[in-house]
């Protein structure tokens, strides 16, 4: 047996003609913070619900810690879930909400009291025992939902967009707290989100999903630096796509012509085939340089600034060039729109920062 904690083997879930999850296989390690990331309707929540036992797969099987849990109902699985709307029982108070799941564990009153107190201090909700859901703020409800799931000491904690309903500031705080909490208690987290920044900043590994399939499964850094296809490249961060055609392979590199810029030797990490027009180039806005003068970088283009947006820590420039059809986005920390006379500028690109991707 290998050491993977959760094994998802060729899982499919169809709702009528819709393939919500389409033949997906991957593994999650013990103690990992694992994220399922994708736009709405990509199947990430369905996959989480399959893990929780609220849905049963059309085909395939699920193994948790070496045990087949495919047919187990939710109450027999060692998993617990934090719901998107928190689903706090409104007719009982915080204390009894948290105790709810302990009834069947056969604990003594003393043990129950200890567990509840421990988990209350873990999520910093001491003193709120008597409150009802309607008397709590969004952030506090989220903590109750977390406490209620953690008090059962599950093997896996499933989180369904738990930060979606919080405001930006609170969300950032909770992201850090969740991450710290997960490291401290060492429980495996499976986290569903549509927010790429959230997934990247919290996870050990991320699975990007679209149309029921995993598009790429890797570390956040790898996902950003080395996306496997156009979907991932577009979904994670921001990027410029340039038209391209591949020519002949040359060792690790492939010759490719990019728009009207000419032919370049670009690293071929994804084994893209020769003489293909089904490819695009991706260049991240922050890897390009914008300046008043020409530079000695691999590619330097003259352009005109069409629009700028000031974001505080940096400024985004939307630039038109003769060679490239689309408007190019470049971000810079050093300049703002007052730095350029007549909006004339030069943008520079290093070949190392260009990645070639298959269109399909």
């Amino acid at each position: 047996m290998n050491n993977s904690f959760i094994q998802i083997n060729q899982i499919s879930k169809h709702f009528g003609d819709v393939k919500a999850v389409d033949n997906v296989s991957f593994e999650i390690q013990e103690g990992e913070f694992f994220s399922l990331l994708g736009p709405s309707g990509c199947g990430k929540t369905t996959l989480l619900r399959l893990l929780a036992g609220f849905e049963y797969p059309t085909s395939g099987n699920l193994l948790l810690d070496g045990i087949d849990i495919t047919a187990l109902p939710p109450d027999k699985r060692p998993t617990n879930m934090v719901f998107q709307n928190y689903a706090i029982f409104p007719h009982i108070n915080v204390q009894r909400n948290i105790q709810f799941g302990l009834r069947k564990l056969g604990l003594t009153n003393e043990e129950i009291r200890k567990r509840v107190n421990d988990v209350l201090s873990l999520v910093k909700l001491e003193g709120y025992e008597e409150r009802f859901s309607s008397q709590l703020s969004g952030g506090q409800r989220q903590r109750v939902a977390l406490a209620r799931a953690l008090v059962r000491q599950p093997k896996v904690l499933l989180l369904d967009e738990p930060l979606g309903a919080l405001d930006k500031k609170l969300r950032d705080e909770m992201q850090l707290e969740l991450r710290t909490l997960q490291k401290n208690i060492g429980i495996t987290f499976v986290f569903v989100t549509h927010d790429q920044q959230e997934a990247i900043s919290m996870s050990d590994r991320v699975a990007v999903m679209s149309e029921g399939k995993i598009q790429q499964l890797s570390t956040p850094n790898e996902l950003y630096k080395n996306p496997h296809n156009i979907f991932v490249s577009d979904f994670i961060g921001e990027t410029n796509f340039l038209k391209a055609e591949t020519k002949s392979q040359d060792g690790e590199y492939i010759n490719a012509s990019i728009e009207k810029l000419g032919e370049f030797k670009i690293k071929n990490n994804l084994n893209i085939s020769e003489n293909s027009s089904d490819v695009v180039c991706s260049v991240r806005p922050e890897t390009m340089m914008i300046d008043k003068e020409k530079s000695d970088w691999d590619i330097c283009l003259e352009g005109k600034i069409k629009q700028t947006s000031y974001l505080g820590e940096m400024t985004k420039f939307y630039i038109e060039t003769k060679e490239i059809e689309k408007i190019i986005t470049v971000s810079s920390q050093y300049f703002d729109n007052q730095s350029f006379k007549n909006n004339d500028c030069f943008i520079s690109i290093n070949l190392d920062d260009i990645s070639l991707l298959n269109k399909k």
Partner: protein
Amino acid sequence: MMPFLIPEIILAVSILVIWLSLGFKLGLIPVTLGHILFCTPFAMLILIARIEGFDFSLEEASRDLGENAWGTFYRVSLPLYLPGIIASLLLSFIISFDEFILAFFLTGSDATLPMYMWGQMRFIQKLPHVLALGAVIIVFTTLIVLLAFWLRNIGQGKDKAGLGIKIHE
């Protein structure tokens, strides 16, 4: 919803015809059945309003926290539906309590309260008793209807997320 739409007298005559053609005797049993038929749509209207707003993720949360289907019903669903159930019970009781037409056709010799009052009205000297009884009934039913609506409205409107009811604003 049909008993709601048909004039009550037609409902009463239909039940009478069917009941007698089946060879049964008149009495409190056909009245009870008639009242059940007549009250069901009212009870359903109240319960549907309650169930439509119910947040089903609460039931999933209960399953997730280790309760089976029965435990979930007993610990989560029932307590949340209870005000609606009681409200519909009270309303059905009131409707049945002062219902006259169905009772008039189906009682035979067993009298319901409205039938008893109907009988007493033939004697002029009993009129004050009937009027007093009527006044008591009016106060009593008003209080019960108010209680029923108060129960029905618990968790709706004022206290958001109060009883697992999603509020559409």
